[in-house]
């Protein structure tokens, strides 16, 4: 009991749990685009940066309330998501992936060259508004809304697009509208995540949101299991905390991290929880228990 109290009174653990939660929100957003709808997006960090810069600039220059800025960060990111959703009409698979990657790099370079965002030096002195309770509240809200989306008519349409786009279209699904909407919602969550990030770390620069961050988030989703919401949670938890756990190996840390990625993929190519329905597992478990009683 005391150990648990110690844990939650240690600001370092709070910090890494909070940052993990922030990444989790972005990863859940990406899971909607890539996992559920099957559209490759290699530029997710760009939406984070849009959310982060939007909310920080609003806070620093217009002094509008934090919750409004948070929401606007998400909305502006969603608008760019719509913009990026349109090419997905013409481009598929890896070509879409590389386009989104390019978009991410262009956003980064634009931020480097913009005066108001502080250029390459970034923005400092952003007030700290994010705390662990707020982050996990939003995580829960995100998970609930993703479940609602996944199990709605809209969500089934998205899965249909992932499985067979042409068949889905033949069934009367407006694939363009559905895909653009998936991009918008996914980017919205990334924007929220970015805004939370900015108000947690209190300093942002374009380099924080390069393609390596995009791939980091993609890692969370793929290693957790594409399309699986619990999978994303588990994947993010493991991979975001791994560098901290691996701290004892010092400079060999990233060596092991890289090897771990390869191993995880080769042993579970569909991701840790890919293709596993947790409800089914739970039901089996209960049935087994009942049978043993009888």
């Amino acid at each position, binding site marked *: 009991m005391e150990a648990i109290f110690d844990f939650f009174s*240690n600001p370092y653990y709070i910090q890494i749990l909070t*940052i993990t939660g922030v990444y989790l929100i972005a990863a859940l957003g990406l899971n909607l685009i890539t996992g559920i709808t099957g559209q490759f997006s290699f530029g997710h960090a760009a939406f984070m940066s849009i959310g982060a810069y939007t909310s920080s600039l609003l806070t620093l220059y217009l002094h509008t309330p934090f919750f409004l800025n948070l929401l606007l960060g998400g909305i502006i990111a969603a608008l760019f998501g719509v913009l990026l959703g349109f090419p997905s009409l013409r481009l598929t698979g890896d070509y879409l992936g590389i386009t989104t990657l390019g978009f991410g790099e262009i956003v980064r370079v634009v931020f480097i060259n913009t005066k108001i965002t502080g250029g390459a*030096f970034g923005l*400092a002195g952003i007030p*700290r508004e994010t705390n662990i309770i707020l982050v996990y509240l939003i995580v829960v809200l995100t998970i609930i809304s993703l479940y609602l989306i996944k199990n709605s008519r809209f969500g089934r349409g998205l899965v249909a697009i992932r499985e067979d786009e042409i068949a889905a279209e033949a069934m009367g699904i407006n694939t363009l509208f559905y895909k653009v909407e998936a991009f918008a919602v996914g980017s919205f969550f990334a924007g929220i995540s970015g805004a939370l990030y900015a108000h947690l770390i209190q*300093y942002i620069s374009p*380099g924080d949101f390069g393609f390596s961050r995009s791939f980091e988030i993609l890692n969370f989703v793929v290693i957790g299991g594409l399309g699986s919401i619990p999978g994303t949670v588990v994947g993010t938890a493991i991979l975001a905390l791994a*560098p901290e756990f691996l701290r004892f190996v010092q400079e060999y840390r990233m060596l092991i991290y890289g090897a771990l990625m390869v191993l995880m993929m080769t042993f579970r190519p569909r991701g840790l*929880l890919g293709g596993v329905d947790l409800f089914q*597992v739970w039901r089996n478990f209960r049935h087994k228990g009942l049978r043993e009683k009888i």
Partner: protein
Amino acid sequence: MKRKWYLFLLVALMSAALVVSGCGSNEKTTAGDTIKIGFLGGKTGNHAHYGIETLKGMQMAVEDINNAGGLLGKKVEIVEGDHGSNSSEAASVTQKLITQKVAAVIGDPTTGITKLAAPICQSNKVVLMSAGAVGTGVVELGDYIFRDCLLDAVAAPVVTKYLAEDLKWKKVALVTTTGLPYSESLTSIFKPALDKYGIEIVTEQNIMEKDNNFSAQVTALAQKQFDGVIFTGYYNEGALFMKEMRKQGLQQVMAGGDGLLGKELYEIGEEAVEGSMVYTGFAVDTNNAVEKTKDFIEKYQAKNNNAQPDMFSAQGYDAVMLIADAIKAAESADPTVYREKLVQTKDWKGVTGTISFDANREPIKSPVYLLEVKDKQFAVKTVIPVTD
């Protein structure tokens, strides 16, 4: 079979969490016996070079302190926080160092990471001493934020004075790398200084970073009369620019900041950069060095296969010593107490020279080393004391 996997995973995660929380509680019990100093920097990742050198200097300082009997009767210990050159990790690492009750966080020479760590240190009232963040807007982030490096705002004017009075430069060409914040801000420091010491800027040329063809700019230079070039960019472009000048028959030399400092300058520039001048806050100058500096250089070389210490290791050494002396003066390792002494630091003598903090906590460092490229080596041309 499948379920076992998750079970295993869960157990692994739990035990990992336990191990980590175990570590946390262990550290608490030892807190009273030593004075801990946190190192924040990248030992891995793309800024690792700066981090590793800073840490080397810090370790040497701690060794010296402990050999001389420690600090306030306690041993000094470095707690390493490697952020892997990754900004979000840097925030966690800073937080971790503070949790481990460090007396000060010393480190990251990069301006970005320093700015990121600053609010965390400030809100926890822990002194952050950056050993190299030269960018603008660093110490403004809070009154617990310090740095011990040579600032361009200090160095550029004294170098300009030297160019005007000793080398009799009257007219210069000023070359800026546009879009490079370092270069643009250095240019804005040089301009008023040149004006003050009566040097006329006959032409201003702009180049781009990573560009490798400067024929147009040099052609423009060739039509003017001038004594030298003030170059505010990095060594790569500097070397290629000088090469182009020699190609077009111009024989003037250039002078610039430590952005030009790197062996690539003469490796790329070869004969064209001979005579070019670069200023820096630390140089291995065994002929003129004071005892302290000589000692540092020898110890460093003994430990590192005769390699020469650079600016980062020297600044790391000085950062630890500055903090240690403030702790000694305040007789307390509590940042809220010794900070008062640290602010008052005046004419403090370290291995990189003399440091004083001005009213805004900005370091005024003396001397400035002016290096010159000679036979494909940097040689100390002159050492200029900073007077005001």
